[in-house]
């Protein structure tokens, strides 16, 4: 620890800025005096009751978490235990990017299964157009569901190709094409194409990319995006994926066929072309960005 920080630490331990647990919990009650105490904790409270944080820290360092009544009470104020754990798992997975792999693996399994079933079916199926096998008019055997289903789709695609197309056509966005430009720049080449397919402006997508990646960049002559920093295709893809979830897909029907418009009062809304639902979305915020070249700046 640096010498400069030492006095700060000791000063804090005498008059902890963190309110005691009772005050922290008081914020959730309706008592106004309690709530006020939460805002500006009186220093004399500190000697009596150790701050919530300090207690936790101490415990961890010395003996590890050991169920103490106050310790138990603290996390409880955040509510839903089950939910948070579940959510956390989800988030963690997203960060690792394994979710997708699992998903594709499952999809493949399903496909394989489907194929097997189809083969099986074909053996006893006969030809449904000529009306042989199971499909023969005199056949009294019950037709399995999978067969009926496949018949439905075959007939649908024959008689009404438009319908079957819209049912199975998935939302396809080409993977982002990324290349390194020099040592510390990344070029996102097909951003224009991707934006066109998502029906979003390049400016909006660019703003989101920059905010998420904590960087900036520019657009070059052939409308490619030049991003400062080194990014792999996978990383850009993840951000585009997040963008689609947040700013493209309809939360009600999952349709990607939506429009982003400015609403009445400086809010942005997504209107679904499929189910006509409308939801507001947050404006893109850059958030805090650390001064990276600070030392150089201060010296020079």
């Amino acid at each position: 620890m640096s010498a400069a920080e030492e006095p700060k630490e000791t000063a804090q331990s005498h008059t902890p800025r963190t309110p005691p647990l009772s005050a922290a919990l008081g914020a959730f009650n309706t008592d106004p005096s309690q709530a006020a105490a939460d805002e500006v904790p009186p220093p004399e409270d500190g000697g009596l009751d150790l701050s919530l944080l300090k207690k936790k820290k101490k415990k961890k360092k010395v003996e590890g978490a050991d169920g103490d009544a106050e310790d138990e009470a603290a996390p409880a104020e955040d509510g839903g235990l089950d939910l948070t754990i579940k959510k956390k798992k989800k988030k963690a997975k997203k960060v690792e990017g394994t979710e997708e792999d699992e998903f594709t693996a499952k999809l493949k399994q399903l496909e394989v299964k489907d194929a097997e079933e189809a083969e099986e079916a074909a053996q006893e199926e006969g030809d449904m157009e000529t009306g042989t096998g199971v499909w023969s008019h005199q056949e009294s055997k019950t037709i399995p569901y999978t067969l009926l289903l496949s018949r439905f789709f075959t007939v649908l695609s024959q008689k009404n190709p438009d319908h079957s197309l819209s049912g199975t056509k998935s939302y396809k966005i080409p993977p982002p094409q990324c290349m390194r430009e020099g040592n510390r720049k990344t070029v996102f080449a097909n951003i224009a194409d991707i934006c066109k397919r998502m029906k979003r402006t390049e400016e909006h997508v660019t703003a989101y990319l920059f905010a998420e990646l904590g960087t900036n960049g520019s657009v070059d002559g052939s409308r490619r995006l030049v991003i400062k920093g080194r990014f792999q295709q996978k990383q850009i893809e993840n951000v585009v994926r997040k963008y689609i979830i947040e700013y493209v897909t309809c939360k009600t029907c999952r349709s990607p066929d939506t429009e982003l418009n400015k609403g009445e009062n400086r809010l942005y809304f997504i209107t679904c072309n499929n189910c006509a639902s409308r939801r507001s979305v947050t404006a893109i915020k850059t958030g805090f960005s650390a001064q990276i070249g600070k030392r150089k700046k201060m010296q020079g």
Partner: protein
Amino acid sequence: MSIENLKTFDPFAEADDDTGDTKKVENHIHIRIQQRNGRKSLTTVTGLPAKFDPGKILTFFRKEFACNGNKVNDEKAGEVIQLQGDQRKKVMDFLVDKKAGLGLNPDNITVHGA
């Protein structure tokens, strides 16, 4: 039990974009990453609840993640913790962990970056 009028209400709090509710901006925690030169990166944590001492959290992070770090006071973002390297997952785990961490609601935390 609760009487609406007695609740603390900050009329100057920024309106929330999602719901239009007014709530303090610091209620939401953002964990971000920034690239520095070369392979190095920087993790920033903003919006930690005021009931936790950022200095103590920082010392814990530094020891636990074996990384250097510092805290800055930003005009807009308030107290910000900066850590060297990509510590986003570890920070997230610590913030939501009920036993060994702060036990915060993950809904109030956003991890940014690819």
